[in-house]
């Protein structure tokens, strides 16, 4: 794998109450990618981020960032890591620009007016820079947290549920922000339970549930491997068996021969093309049909089916 920027090996966290929030997680993150950690509430996403960022003490396992062992060279590694937490935690009485300048200094960088202005402007916070944080709306507060995380120009950024409880407009805005950060070469790890978000943004997706990292793959490869096209073709006249002319397609009869069901493809569009091919063949063969209903499986379906398998395995 080219340039892993973060390497987790056997990362395990058992909370003091005995709950195993992470169970031997292995994960490599590549430089410059957007990685989406996808999983239901309580899956262990925040715990994983906390372990890397120093908020949670791992029970066992090793973590390396930028080649530094996070247990030993954490000062060097942390300078290059930014975190936007899930909860909106802000110092209410602090003016926005102070909060951001403070973050930069805390991470060891000298004050930089130009950079401060750039960060504030890019998040539409420039006009609010003198205001106390308590005077801002929830969406604006989240921007302040992002600005704080970006103040020290991190190479690796964690966004924990960046769009949870955020209105549609701000969510779109957030996606633009993430795109802009990617363009600057920042590696981004975000968690979400909105599948569309992972589908929209991520290069790779990891699916986590109950502390187990179930699958990590390129988003496209994951769709290809698990994605499916399903088409139901309602026939004008019922048939008793599949005609030889369409035997090469993955089809079967359903609803007592009144419909054909196609299940195939791989999430890359191959399925749709095959369905078109199939219908042309039917037309050529004079087999009439009255309705076609196609459905592409999404990451959501993949997710549900994976979690279903995990439940079954337990």
């Amino acid at each position: 794998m080219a340039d892993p920027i973060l390497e987790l090996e056997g990362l395990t966290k058992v909370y003091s109450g005995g709950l195993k929030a992470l169970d031997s997680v292995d994960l490599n993150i590549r430089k410059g990618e957007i990685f989406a950690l996808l999983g239901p509430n309580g899956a262990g996403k925040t715990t994983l981020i906390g372990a890397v960022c120093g908020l949670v003490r791992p029970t066992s396992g090793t973590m390396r960032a930028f080649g530094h062992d996070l247990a030993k060279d954490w000062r060097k590694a942390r300078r290059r890591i930014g975190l936007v937490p899930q909860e909106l935690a802000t110092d209410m009485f602090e003016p926005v620009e102070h909060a951001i300048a403070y973050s930069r200094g805390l991470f060891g960088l000298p004050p930089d007016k130009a950079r401060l202005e750039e960060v504030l402007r890019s998040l539409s916070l420039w006009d609010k820079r003198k205001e106390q944080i308590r005077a801002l709306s929830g969406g604006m507060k989240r921007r302040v947290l992002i600005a704080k995380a970006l103040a020290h120009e991190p190479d690796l950024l964690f966004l924990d549920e960046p769009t949870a409880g955020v209105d549609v407009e701000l969510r779109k805005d957030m996606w633009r922000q993430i795109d802009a950060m990617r363009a600057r070469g920042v590696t981004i790890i975000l968690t979400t339970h909105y599948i569309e978000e992972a589908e929209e943004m991520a290069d790779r997706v990891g699916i986590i549930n109950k502390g187990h990292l179930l699958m990590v793959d390129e988003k496209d490869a994951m769709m290809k491997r698990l994605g499916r096209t399903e088409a139901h073709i309602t026939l004008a006249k019922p048939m008793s068996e599949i005609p030889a002319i369409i035997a090469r397609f993955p089809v079967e009869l359903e609803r007592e021969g009144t419909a054909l069901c196609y299940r195939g493809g791989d999430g890359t569009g191959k399925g749709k093309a095959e369905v078109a091919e199939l219908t042309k063949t039917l037309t050529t063969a004079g087999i009439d049909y009255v309705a076609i209903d196609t459905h592409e499986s999404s990451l959501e379906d993949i997710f549900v089916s994976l979690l279903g398998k995990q439940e079954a395995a337990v």
Partner: protein
Amino acid sequence: MSLNLRGTWSIFTRELMRFLRTAFQSVLAPVLTTSLYFIVFGAAIGGRMPALGGVDYAAFIIPGLVMLTLLGETTSNASFGIYMPRFTGTIYELLSAPVGVAETLIGFVGAAAAKSLILAAIILTTARLFVPYHIAHPFLAVVYIMLVAASFSLFGFILGVWADSFEKLGIIPVLFLTPLTFLGGTFYSIDMLPKPWSTVALFNPIVYLVSGLRWTFYGQADVHFGISLGITFVFLAVCVTVISIIFKTGWRLRD
């Protein structure tokens, strides 16, 4: 390991800014309290008191008053400084930053100590309006005030990490610090106490602090200055040790 000095500086200046945002109440409260003590103890009662060891009673109580405010304010400043981020969740940033125990302590404790010095200066200035007094060892007085301020900032830091509610945060100063300070010779000399009590008083660590500061002011005190200094250092060392353990184990800071 190279320390992140910019990080330390950021913590220090931010804490001081927090203090300055509430500058009015931070200054007004000690001015008012000190004035009240002087009116009641200095003028009303002090007029009927004999001079203690050649020091006029109103002047005699000044070091005790400085200690009284210093211990209370320093402890509560430092404890709030670390409790509030824990309470609001903003501590995530500190925990994820490239700062360790040294940077954090120097930043927080340095700021709390600086605030305490400002307070001490305000109290001494206010006292000037009521009594003319002369400080015998001004340099040692400043050093000693800084030492006590640093120690109680550390103590406050521990308190702020330990407390898991506002009640607990407030109870220690009210339950221990204020009574011990009142009993610690703020308003009297230990040898004015009847026999068993003058010995019992020596088990109160604050007696040594008040006495130490009084020595730097007037060159005489209940106990030898060296002993006061020694006890202050022991307290400081204990606090530093406890805090190092807190950071090593992540107790109440990291899950």
